[in-house]
């Protein structure tokens, strides 16, 4: 019998839901992987289910003031989601809470760079263009430091793409891009 004949999609969807509800990102991704391998035509809809379920879980964490876990999950999703309206809404809810309550997030360096990019999205969405630009500048400064000893990674690539989108003044965005390109092409 083939794998397809014995594959029970519902079991793995249930497992996926359980992993997300237990905040187990690694296992949830493994289950998503199995679902996509066995029903490849549904890859995009499974991924959507995965994102939506995480958004629900994270909102729950935020509502329960579990901001450390919420932040960690949001950062891991931020670097894989190119654009998702619901996720951006969630990001605003999370960062609103962090900023308004002046919560110190104690971030490591690699988390900081993601956080700056997330903040640029936050300020762009609430139309504070000046702060959005400042966050992009901070994000790019961190990236430049990283690039001294590393080649540009896929995460760095997506962070630059996502951050640049958050500068409404396109001329300014070009200037910042030109500046970081000097670093990218130098190393």
């Amino acid at each position: 019998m083939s794998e397809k004949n014995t594959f029970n999609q519902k079991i793995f969807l249930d497992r996926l839901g359980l992993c997300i509800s237990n905040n187990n990102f690694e296992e949830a991704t493994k289950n998503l992987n199995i679902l996509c391998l066995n029903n490849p035509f549904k890859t995009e809809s499974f991924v959507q289910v995965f994102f939506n379920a995480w958004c629900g879980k994270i909102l729950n964490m935020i509502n329960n003031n579990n901001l450390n876990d919420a932040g960690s999950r949001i950062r891991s999703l931020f670097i894989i989601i190119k654009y998702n309206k619901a996720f951006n809404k969630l990001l605003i809810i999370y960062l609103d809470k962090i900023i308004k309550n002046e919560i110190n997030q104690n971030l490591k360096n690699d988390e900081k760079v993601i956080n700056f990019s997330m903040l640029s999205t936050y300020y762009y969405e609430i139309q504070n263009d000046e702060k959005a630009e400042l966050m992009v500048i901070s994000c790019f400064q961190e990236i430049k430091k990283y690039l001294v000893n590393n080649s540009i990674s896929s995460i760095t690539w997506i962070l630059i793409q996502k951050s640049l989108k958050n500068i409404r003044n396109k001329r300014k965005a070009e200037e910042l891009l030109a500046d970081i390109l000097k670093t990218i092409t130098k190393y």
Partner: protein
Amino acid sequence: MWILGISKSHNGAVALSNNGKVISAIQAERISRVKRQAIKLENDKTLVSECVNYCLDQAGIKHSDLHSISICTPWDVVPIENEKLFNLIGGIPKNYKKTYYVPHHYAHAEYILHYSNLSKGIILVIDGSGTKEKDRKLFNIQEKVDTKCKSYVEESGKETISAYFFDGKEVSLIYRLGLSADKNNQININGNGFLQSIGHYWRWASNYCCGSHSEAGKVMGLAAFGNCETHKDLKILTLDLDGFLEVNYKKLNEKFKHPNIFGKDLTQNSHYSDIAAMVQKDTENILIKILTILKNKYPTDTLYYSGGVALNMVANEKIIRSNLFKNIILNGSVEDNGTAIGAALAAYNAQTGARSTSPLTDYYGKVYSDDEILKSIKKFPFKYELLTEEKKYRVVSSLIFENNVVGWFQDRSEFGPRALGNRSILANPKSQYTKYILDLHIKQRDRYRPYSPVVLEEYAKKFFDIEGNSPVMMSGGKVLSNNFPAITHRDNSARVQTLSEKNNKIFYRLIKSFYKISGYPIILNTSFNLPGEPIVENPTDALNSFTNGALQYLCIGNYLVTRN
């Protein structure tokens, strides 16, 4: 004789022909602004009628002038009553003759045949899948089958490869693969829904490498980063001497367990790039094998090639260089959109027994007047300046030379997936920053995807190792200089558009002007669209894209639009 062709497909399109000449055509996605918009002819009256009106407007005729409608679909064939069909297209023809139903691969064949001098040749059609075998009796345009035809089909199967022989007058089926997706079918048992199809092998790779089944173009770009030797012993795609093709999904499923479900950038990941290289190499090898078998049986110097797989310019280049054929006819709309044209032309042939021909072209869109353009521009808060024709070329070529990226909207839009200089984003191919600016800021792309050059036809061989011309960007070759990093892919190749004045006067004059300033007759040419969106169609689309995107300059007709 006005005939409307409809591609009822996941890549829906409408085309209008008159006496066998293509007058206008539009992909539904350009109207709905949803990429790969389907036409279902079921509860989509607004979309269908807008597409039809678009074609009628360009031709200057009305619904009442239509004589026939010809429909092609890879889905279930459902005959439609006249009343319902006229309601869908938004008007009633006066002297209506008939509604035609055309087999999918046959429509691909009639499409590509139109762009030739009708010399004898083999027509090869390869895509994901087309007509269901069970539906054949429902067509009122039937294929003629050659007595020596080799056919591997099942009643519940779908055509995935078809070859025809054109004897200068008639088209006859000479080869077909159309196996069922039935999981009880031994060969498809581990297919997970994928068919015995080269197009579906690419779908599998697209799903596995890019997290989406419609990213075959990305897989092709990624292949240049991989090593095709890594999996050379797997033998996923095989063809026996009788032309029986097999895609071994069982081996794929056993070997590859980590799909890139989130569609992450794969530039530095050999797991995926080696798979892409394997799929590319397998495809090239099998195409040469199929064509060798066909040519041995039906000797000819001419190949007509259509279907979605024909968009693979690297494989096309291999076919060209194989010297199996002296003449290879390829055009820009070989995907399902082209079957709208093919269906209309097949109906014309069925009615009259005649065929007409055309030079290679894909400019079938509408022309927007200066007034329409100005009206649109005034709705947006941008600075604009009306330039003379000469000044337009001078100013835009200078901007590009100074490393600006410019939106370029001129004349009739392109019908197929390639922007051929009428709905394009243009940039300097020489700057080391151009690709980064496009990838990171303007097009928001993964790094492994290349950008295409357009070169003045008379200089093409000086800069590219290219066989013949490539007016619709369907083939390519190695870049012969190290000076053009923005258009040189990882393996030094480029998908080239060669441009003659006859083919596109406005675009030709722009590049000529750029050549005078820069000393090189090449510009980077990529499609004018935002990430995830279809190519812009009308002036408002272009200005919306300009508003939401990151371009600083947009030349639309003779107007230069800039940000305040």
